[in-house]
């Protein structure tokens, strides 16, 4: 758990005729992160060539993405293929599937075209309606349009046979043509159009045999509400639009089962051929290599042998051994699921280098302790836990929302930590409902702490966080030494900022500070002790620069030792010392923010209680509720960020470089986005 999963490299040679079965087996198992065989060191045998697949991987990928796009438009997100999809893998007929997709796309496009036409109609009618609304025409008397309106209205008659011609002519213009009635072969119409189109309208009406008339007496009684008519027409068109929108979705949904099947098969084939792009073949054999967790070695050996009926050569090389290909060993975290939210915080900073310490198990207690110290309250912690739990239940098993899911879990953990520290400090929604298990934080800040407590004032609270900070920094240094020992970097282990000498100086600094505090800041430790604690390690650190110079100058004629080199050594040494002294001091003092935020939290709650006491009844309750909401939102976020910052910059920087390469095997659950 402290170190990442142990990895092993497989170098395999199988017969060409077993290649397909072996590929399927490797995909089913999904544990190999392949290395492209072209990376093989030394002379590559010319006889080795790429595996020739029946279909191009790009074509499969493009088709798969096309189906994915189609499914997305129907709101369907395909789930990752299963083992049954692999068992039922069939060869893809690209042309046939393309034709099927083209058909669906074509149908969709024609619906879109229809939507566009209707939309134009809607826009035209909306234009008229807007004008009518804006410039308020007296619609009851259609013969008297308002003076400043841009809308023109007229009643007229035309032969019934010409009605269609009129409708066609008006199609391109914003207009509303309402049939008012019919007398034998003559139709009476009310036409609303835009004045700006008068010239065109006149031509259209003339060709349709339109005669302008006064509203006929018998039709005057038909009180047509033009505005209502307009709204009805708009509603009809909008309804039609809605139907078409549903039709587009149905188009995909109708085919979704089939599309999902094709997608699954394409995805499996895509992964299958992706694995084979890492293979190299000779006339009869195929070779491949890659990394996998050591624990999977036995099982993979067994299934590969089974797939090729023992006709294979498998060579296993431990990470770091001479036989491995490529320098970089992929890193697989080795943490239980419970640590997933904290692993997310670590990987957000970087991936640990293979073989070094994975800080995840330490981040959990440190992060939670920092958060709890900054945000200690049982009630508010409970709310945070509930909110986190709600997030967890909502986001559970939601694909693509893993980050938020882990964040919700982090909320649950942080809430629990708040509750724990709240009980220790006796804070329940800012009140002292129960006595504190450790000390009365609120009491100390508000100036009435218990006298018999070990913590009596703000300075005591600050010193807790300083001790906490020292522990975190020392832990970081120890981890650094462990990493350097494992990597056999002896020089860095002894002569560097985070080295044993660096730690020696830091320890010395802590002793001197404690000594001075114990002597009321009036006395330094004796000179000899000062020399041993600070002077000697500082002098020893001078070795670093000359060591690097002479080590790297070997064989380089332009790097000669002279007086400037000596000055360089001196400057390098001074800068390094300054960095150590100021760096460690600021790193340690940085932890005072933990106490600072804890104090701010208490102060905010005291302020809200003071405000509430200035009112009574519902006002009192409301202020306290709003105050708690504000504190949970504001302080919760601040404490979360500051705890993260302390982990990243005060703890991680001591030992964690985040230069690792995450283990990403090709498997059925590989990400396809």
């Amino acid at each position, binding site marked *: 758990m402290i170190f990442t999963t142990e990895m092993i490299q497989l170098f395999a040679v199988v017969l060409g005729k077993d290649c397909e079965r072996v590929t399927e087996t490797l995909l089913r198992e999904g544990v190999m992160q392949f290395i492209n065989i072209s990376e093989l060191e030394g002379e590559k045998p010319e006889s080795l060539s790429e595996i020739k697949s029946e279909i191009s991987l790009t074509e499969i990928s493009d088709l798969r993405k096309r189906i994915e796009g189609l499914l997305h438009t129907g709101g369907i997100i395909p789930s990752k293929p299963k083992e049954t999809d692999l068992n039922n893998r069939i060869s893809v007929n690209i042309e046939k599937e393309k034709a099927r997709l083209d058909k669906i796309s074509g149908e969709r496009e024609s619906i879109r075209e229809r939507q566009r036409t209707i939309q134009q109609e809607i826009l035209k009618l909306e234009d008229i309606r807007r004008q009518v609304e*804006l410039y308020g025409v007296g619609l009851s008397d259609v013969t008297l349009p308002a003076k400043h309106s841009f809308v023109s209205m007229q009643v007229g008659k035309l032969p019934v046979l010409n009605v269609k011609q009129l409708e066609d002519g008006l199609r391109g213009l914003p207009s509303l043509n309402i049939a008012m009635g019919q007398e034998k072969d003559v139709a009476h119409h009310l036409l609303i159009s835009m004045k700006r189109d008068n010239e065109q309208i006149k031509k259209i009406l003339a060709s349709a045999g339109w005669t302008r008339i006064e509203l006929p007496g018998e039709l005057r009684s038909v009180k047509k509400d033009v505005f209502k008519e307009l709204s009805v027409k708009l509603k009809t068109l909008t309804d039609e639009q809605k139907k078409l929108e549903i039709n587009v979705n149905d188009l995909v949904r109708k085919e979704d089962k089939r599309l999902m099947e094709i997608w699954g098969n394409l995805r499996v084939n895509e992964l299958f051929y992706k694995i084979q792009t890492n293979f190299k073949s000779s006339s009869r054999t195929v070779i491949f290599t890659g990394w996998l967790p050591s624990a999977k070695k036995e099982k993979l050996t067994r299934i590969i042998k089974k797939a090729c009926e023992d006709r294979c050569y498998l060579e296993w090389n431990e990470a770091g051994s001479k036989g491995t290909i490529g320098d970089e060993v992929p890193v697989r975290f080795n943490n239980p699921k419970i640590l997933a939210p904290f692993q997310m915080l670590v990987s957000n900073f970087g991936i640990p280098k293979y073989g070094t310490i994975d800080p995840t198990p330490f981040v959990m207690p440190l992060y939670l302790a920092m958060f709890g110290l900054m945000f200690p309250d049982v009630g508010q912690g409970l709310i945070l836990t509930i909110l986190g739990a709600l997030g967890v239940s909502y986001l559970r098993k939601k694909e693509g929302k893993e980050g938020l899911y882990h964040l919700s879990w982090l909320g649950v953990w942080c809430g629990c930590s708040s509750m724990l520290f709240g009980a220790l400090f006796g804070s329940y929604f800012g009140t002292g409902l129960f006595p504190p298990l450790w000390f009365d934080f609120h009491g100390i800040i508000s100036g009435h702490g218990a006298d018999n407590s070990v913590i009596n004032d703000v300075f005591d609270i600050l010193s807790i966080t300083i001790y906490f900070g020292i522990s975190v920094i020392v832990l970081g240094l120890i981890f650094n030494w462990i990493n350097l020992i494992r990597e056999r970097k002896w020089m860095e282990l002894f002569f560097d900022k985070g080295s044993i000498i660096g730690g020696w100086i830091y320890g010395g600094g802590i002793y001197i500070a404690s000594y001075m505090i114990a002597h009321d800041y009036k006395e330094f430790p004796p000179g000899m002790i000062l020399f041993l604690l600070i002077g000697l390690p500082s002098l020893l650190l001078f070795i670093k620069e000359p060591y690097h110079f002479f080590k790297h100058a070997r064989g380089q004629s332009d790097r000669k030792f002279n007086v400037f080199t000596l000055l360089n050594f001196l400057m390098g040494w001074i800068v390094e010392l300054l960095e150590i002294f100021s760096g460690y001091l600021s790193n340690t003092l940085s932890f005072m923010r933990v106490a600072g935020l804890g104090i701010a939290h208490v102060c905010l709650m005291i302020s809200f209680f003071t405000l509430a006491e200035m009112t009574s009844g519902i006002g009192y309750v409301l202020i306290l509720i709003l105050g708690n909401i504000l504190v949970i939102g504001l302080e919760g976020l601040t404490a979360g960020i500051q705890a993260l910052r302390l982990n990243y910059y005060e703890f991680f920087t001591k030992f964690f470089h985040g230069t690792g390469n995450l283990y990403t095997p090709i498997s059925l659950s590989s990400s396809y986005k």
Partner: protein
Amino acid sequence: MARPLSKYSFINAKLRARISKILPGEMFDQLAKASSLDDALALLRETPFAGLEEIYSRTGDLKQAELELLKNEIELYRNIRQYLHHKSMELVDALLTQFEIDNLKNAIRIYFNRKIRKRSDDISIHYILYDRIIHEIPIDIILNAENFDEIAGVCEGTSYSQIIRKYSHTVESEGSLFRMEIAFDHFYYKNLLSSIDKLDKRDRTIALRLTGVEIDLQNINWIIRFKNFYGLPLEAVLAAIVPGGFNLDRAIMDQLYSAQNVTSVLQGFVKSKYPGLSALLSSHTSDSTSRLLLIRRILEEIMKHEVQRILTGYPFTIGIILSYFVLKRNELKKIRIILNAKQLRIQQERIESMI
């Protein structure tokens, strides 16, 4: 006088957070690879541009979605404006003028096509903004106007009225809106530069540089267009040029105009002023379309370079606001290009070269 820290600390933090939300390059690659417009819009579903897909699914009308995009862009300026100090507010207002001018130009174009060119252009009417941007301009009246006097009348109280009155006869006699539109653009930059003049020294220097570069890019674009597409003589081109550029002087403009190969002049300009961008110059193009694309890319890279310079410099200046607007404008432009290209079924490679 407010200190830079108090003036810009909040907006600086806010905009830096927003900058991190701007769609990454990979997203545009994915959009370019999408097999259809529907697929591209589906990809935007999980982004702040999800509204576009909703509008398109409802109407099948991409222009309607684009109109929404424009409204959002204007809202963005208004939203940031409220967090600013009054001098910076004036600058944002000046920037907002661009949207008002563009909208007014579109409305006048519709009027011009209907009344002067006698062409019906009714569809464009639906994709114009009727809401107030800065001034209360009744767009309806402009669209339905009988003459330029009526348009100038409804714009009374704004500087646009004078421009319309001044150029209405020229437009009618030449049968082209060219001079009026150039005058609008000149007004925009003049107004922008005068609002920059009111800023504090540090802000002024930064804003002048960025606006100057923008003017340069606009001028380069115009020189190429006016010469190659409109065939304007050098004097006419120089009269149209916007003053206040940062890098382009008269000599370079002359050179750009008279050069057979504009790209080579531009390459010389980039080499001297922006040596860091010389990698761009290695591209060799033969056909005119690719050359134009290369020119556009060079201009965009220059702007990007300037924005990067601001973002890595002293944070508490007007620069962060201007940079954010540039980045956001680029983002929206790319989205518009890709979606339109998808509707026109333009090939992926071509789209990639366009963005």
